[in-house]
């Protein structure tokens, strides 16, 4: 399952991130790598982007980028 499909308010574990251009590495540098805990806190009024809690901070990213992030239940 990808982060774009993750249920709201349920912490999940990142198992991998597929390459999708330069921005993938920036997401990884910001902590979105294997083993990170992520929780989808909500979506913007038009359904995109996503608002997530990543480790100790909050981040907003587009659904297209979230689709590159593989997750599994904790």
């Amino acid at each position, binding site marked *: 399952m990808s982060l774009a499909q993750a249920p709201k308010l349920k912490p999940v574990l990142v198992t991998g991130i597929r390459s999708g251009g330069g921005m993938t590495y920036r997401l990884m540098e*910001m902590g979105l790598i294997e083993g990170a805990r992520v929780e989808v806190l909500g979506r913007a009024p038009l359904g995109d982007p996503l608002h997530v809690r990543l480790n100790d901070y909050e981040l907003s990213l587009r659904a297209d980028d979230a689709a590159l992030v593989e997750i599994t239940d904790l």
Partner: protein
Amino acid sequence: MKTDESSLAPNPDTSLEADPGEILLTVALIGNPNTGKTSLFNSLTGFRRHVANYPGVTVETASGPIKNVEPAMLLVDLPGTYSLAAISPDEMVVNDALHGRIAGLSRPDVILAIVDASNLHRNLYLVSQLLDLKLPLVIAVNMIDVAAKRGIELDCELLSARLGLPVIPVIATRENTIAPLRNALHQATLKHGAAEAVELPNEIAGEMTSFREHNPGLSPPEALRIIMERGGYAEKQFIACGGDLEQINESRRRMKEAGIDGPRLEVQTRYAWIHKILDGAVTRPKKPLVTWTDRIDRVLTHRVWGAICLLGVLYVMFEALFRFAGVVMDQIDCAFAALGELVAGWLPAGAVQSLAADGLIGGVGGVLVFLPQILLLFAFIAMLEDCGYMARAAYMNDRIMRVLGLSGRSFIPLLSGFACSVPAILGTRAIADRRERFVTIMIIPFISCSARLPVYVLLISAVVPSVKYLGGWLSLQALIMLGMYLVGVVAAIPAAFMLHKAAPAGPKPNFILELPSYKMPRLRAIWRRMYFAGREFIVRAGTIILAVNLCVWALGYFPHSETTRAAVVTRAAEQGWERERHESELAGAYIRDSYLGAVGRAIEPVVEPIGWDWRIGMAVAASFPAREVVVASLGTIYNLGAETDESSHSLTNAIRNARHDETGEKIFTIPVALSVMIFFALCAQCSGALVVIARETGSWKWAAVSFTGMTTLAYFAAWGAATLARACGL
């Protein structure tokens, strides 16, 4: 954006003149965004901030001497960044500064890295890259109080021992907590040698070494960034300096053949190191405590309530910009008009009187009139940014802005354009991505600003019949007004697409944005933003806008010949005009016979296809420096004297009854009025905006593109609208 020659020289007035002999060492302040970097800078320097534009760098870099420290040190505040792998030019500035590649700014002797105590995990990523630089490094752990409230405990001594670096807990906003930091900076300057860097896997380290054998001038971290980021700024800079792309490709090929994804491996290695460093040094609650930010966000980023709150915030902002600033602007306008009359009374009639009253005082007033809106808009932007709401507004609007190929970050600047393009363009500085900032700057003038409103009001009330629909709920006049606002927005969409193609090459705007914790906005920070924005506008834009206004005054005043006067005097005597009629006819005759009038007649063949006569052409030409001038111009041309505003019934009537000289047909038919309004909606008739575009894009070329592009579009759209309206029998 490219910088042109004019901005390549450092600003003489902002260069550091604090005794060159006294400042010995340079300390670079670096950290992630939202870590309280500016607060720490202010506490260390005591708010002594010199803002400088260094050669080739459009990002402002602030620096100031550190208070109470030995030896004397200069603190340089670098833009916030998450990584040294630069994906934007602003991030490259950080790299350039750290490697001493910015002329006028020496290579730092010490690095002061600020990290957020609540979020060490991500913040240490940048620290792990800074270790590669082999420079003395001091770490300030900021907001330990906030971390404690969130149940996060840090063992700074253990961290210090593991990193081999001074790790100093601080609360940047409280100056009394930073004394140990001064001491650590002092100690850092005495020590030689640096802490141990993160050990990169052999595959990467080997490539770095062999790459440096070919390019001995590069340091290991420089070489690393060049091979790692495909199409990144380090690579571009290397090639621009004569580096060989084939060498980079060879390194990348070898890594690929070895089955490794270099950048991915680097990130994984660094995070593995961070885990080891933090293990046991940081304890945090099993489940994150619910913070005030979480509670506030439940409402402010809620899909329904959040949208309503955003509309509320925008409503308050617009009310303030239109109503409050509008009142002050009217007062400035009146004050300058009164001053002009006063001065005119002192001086003998003639060119000097007109120059002083209309040209100079009118021109200065025309510049200062923007000031209330600029200050107020910047107060709002600074407040929304400082408290953390700006990131939420960007988050909620990202999907809408994607239609323009932009991201949520350009939402507030574009919206501010409805008030005034000038502060809106200055407000794009909050957009980190250059390409996105460029496109946003260029489409802001398409948004109908408040100066277009008088034109719409005048022509709609004069020409459009007051028909009501749906039992009086909907009026044709209001619909046309709404249409005028939509014209600009609709035109901005294809313009944005074309500008994306013309933009200096760069990655497509993306949207990965940290949503920082909410905090109370600092009044001092807001005040500083207002002060600098206001000062810069007056100094830079003021001089040029004034010059343009003076030119148009001269064109409208000269030759001011005796023959013109004599003709009016004769006609006045023949027809027995009263004094008032006489004066307004004279003012009209002077402007008709002026060079500006000649311009109007010269462009008549151009505007004729739209159905305009030379008088409209001239009024339009006269309003190029500032479009709101057109109302006064029309007043003068139709002989109503200078005292005219859009609500004066006499002007509405004069517009309604104006007729062609020869045919006696009405000039302002519905097609003509529509076409004039559409022309004003789309045309770049604002010297202020053009000057600011040139300044913010770093090139007059883009101001010229904006001017010619929008004027051409406005002309054809006006012609199209007039033709269509005539075809519909209006």
